[in-house]
């Protein structure tokens, strides 16, 4: 802070980072901060500027668009922020995306060539993220001693201690899970279950306390006979994401190396 008088306090860098941390690469379901996509954060009073780069110039413009919009909306959700300006660099469509997001245009307006909006792709990727997160949540419950029959029958109301908000930060936090007509409870780590619920809510699958928590990738309740297959499909979704993450990490490093080399020449 400088000595100049300000009517409102400006946001802290940590607060901005925290908001950006909630933005995920929709394909990898990992935070853009953890993925090191964010290159720069500049704070000037109530105006925040964020610059980010993706692993390759060829990253899907639709995915880049989603991240840019989410970054803008997350940062602007801070009460101390009036506007967030997002700049995408080193991408084949950096101009369209940067201008479109900051001028608050729709994807279809920013890309007149495209065949419509990005909602369908976003919904599909959210569904994949849900399936992968379900795998972690189910593993945690198996580890806690629940059997498959009990797990597929679980409803939102069977959990006690979930905050219902964003994913729990503390890895030590636990929840109580009631089974056998609430006759007994087991404790399980909260984080994977919170993370799962967050996506399950986003995809509109679990909103009511009576809704079954876990579903097939198609969104149906799980037949106990299909438990193993659904679990394997969840694991497969995770393997797919982490493999793609491996490619993205590699491409990002390779491109940084290439750009540094050409800067040295």
């Amino acid at each position, binding site marked *: 802070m400088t000595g100049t008088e300000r009517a409102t306090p400006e946001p802290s860098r940590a607060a901005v980072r925290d908001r950006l941390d909630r933005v995920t690469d929709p*394909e990898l379901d990992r935070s853009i901060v953890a993925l090191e996509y964010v290159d720069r954060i500049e704070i000037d009073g109530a105006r925040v500027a964020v610059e980010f780069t993706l692993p390759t*110039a*060829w990253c899907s413009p639709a995915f880049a668009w989603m991240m840019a919009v989410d970054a803008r909306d997350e940062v602007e959700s801070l009460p101390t922020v009036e506007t967030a300006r997002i700049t995408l660099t080193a991408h*084949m469509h950096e101009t369209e995306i940067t201008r479109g997001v900051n001028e608050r245009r729709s994807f279809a307006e920013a*890309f007149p060539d495209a065949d419509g909006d990005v909602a369908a792709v976003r919904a599909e990727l959210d569904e*994949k993220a849900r399936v992968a997160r379900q795998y972690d949540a189910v593993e945690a419950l198996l580890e806690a001693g629940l059997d498959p029959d009990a797990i597929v029958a679980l409803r939102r109301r069977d959990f006690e201690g979930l905050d219902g908000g964003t994913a729990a930060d503390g890895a030590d936090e636990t929840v109580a899970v009631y089974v056998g007509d609430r006759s007994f409870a087991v404790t399980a780590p909260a984080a994977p279950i919170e993370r799962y619920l967050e996506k399950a809510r986003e995809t509109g699958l679990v909103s009511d306390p009576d809704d079954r928590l876990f579903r097939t990738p198609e969104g149906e309740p799980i037949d106990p006979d299909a438990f193993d297959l659904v679990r394997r*499909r969840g694991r497969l979704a995770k*393997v797919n994401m982490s493999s793609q993450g491996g*490619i993205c990490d590699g*491409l990002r490093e390779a491109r940084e190396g290439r750009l540094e080399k050409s800067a040295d020449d």
Partner: protein
Amino acid sequence: MYQHNGEEIFVIDGHVHLWDATAENIDHDGGEEFIQCFYDYHTTFTPEDRQWSIEEYRKYGPDRMVEDLFGNAATDMAIFQPTYLSDFYVEGFNTTEQNADLATEYPERFVLNGSFDPRDGEAGLEYLEELHEAYDIPGVKLYTAEWRGDSKGWRLDDEEAFRYLEKCAELGIENIHAHKGPTIRPLNRDAFDVADVDDAASSFPDLNFIVEHVGLPRLDDFCWIAAQENNVYGGLAVAAPFAQNRPGKFSEIMSELLWWLGEDRILFGSDYALWNPDWLVEEVLEAELTQEHRTEYGVEWDLETKRKVMGENAADLYDIDIEAKRRAFQDDEISREFGLGDHYAGEEPAAADD
């Protein structure tokens, strides 16, 4: 014949290109971005001391290709998969006609595939017939996410695409290689979508659908489809080089593939010149599944599986008689040029378990 722990393995590289990305051939910024992105893939997964310079990488020419593929006997045969990209490159990036020069010079060593784009309408069907007549192509490589004018891509289950697949079935072009992986100019459309393979595969049971790059980054959708359609195969290009610098991830991907598809429907491919088979074949053959994955998935990356994935599965699809090839290669031009006769003179290899 690759020597692996004293055993011979016949290697068919299911995915190779001879491309030209020199400045003179680039017609559009996309062409330059495309080769730079390829080069990032190359350096990401190639051991440092085996990496090429970008200049070599832009155009390596036929002699180098022959030496890289066959010179040290890493590969016995290779299948050309063309990549036209005619909106980006003046003469195309890597067309059937360009590949044909080398394929006709060494017809025993190369398989030449063609390509089609259903957006070309009647003219495209005629072109497909011409390719069939000129080269008797046994397969095609397709890019469903390729931009063309106003179109941002097409689907294998489009009505128009089905006309082309019918033509393939009629002409006996049985192997349909669909590029489903790293993208080519997608916009809002999910260019990685593999769902269109499902309907096409069930509608054309006599054709084989090889999903290149095993659908990465849609491995999950691909495996789910392949588990249900037994004429769907997975090409390992892009997944294979994980063996070099991410062995745990390679183990995991292979375990998934072996569990969902089984060992008969996975095909090795180097994606040359993205990666060189001279080191990649060895990395893949020497790779091991982790004990954790072997236990969890109940699959093995053993000699029999390796033989199938590295050559026998492709041989089945392309009607290649491996034993006849082995005899022919004892004294073909390439074996003489690189002194490889001994590689093919060994004892009769163990019979394939079909």
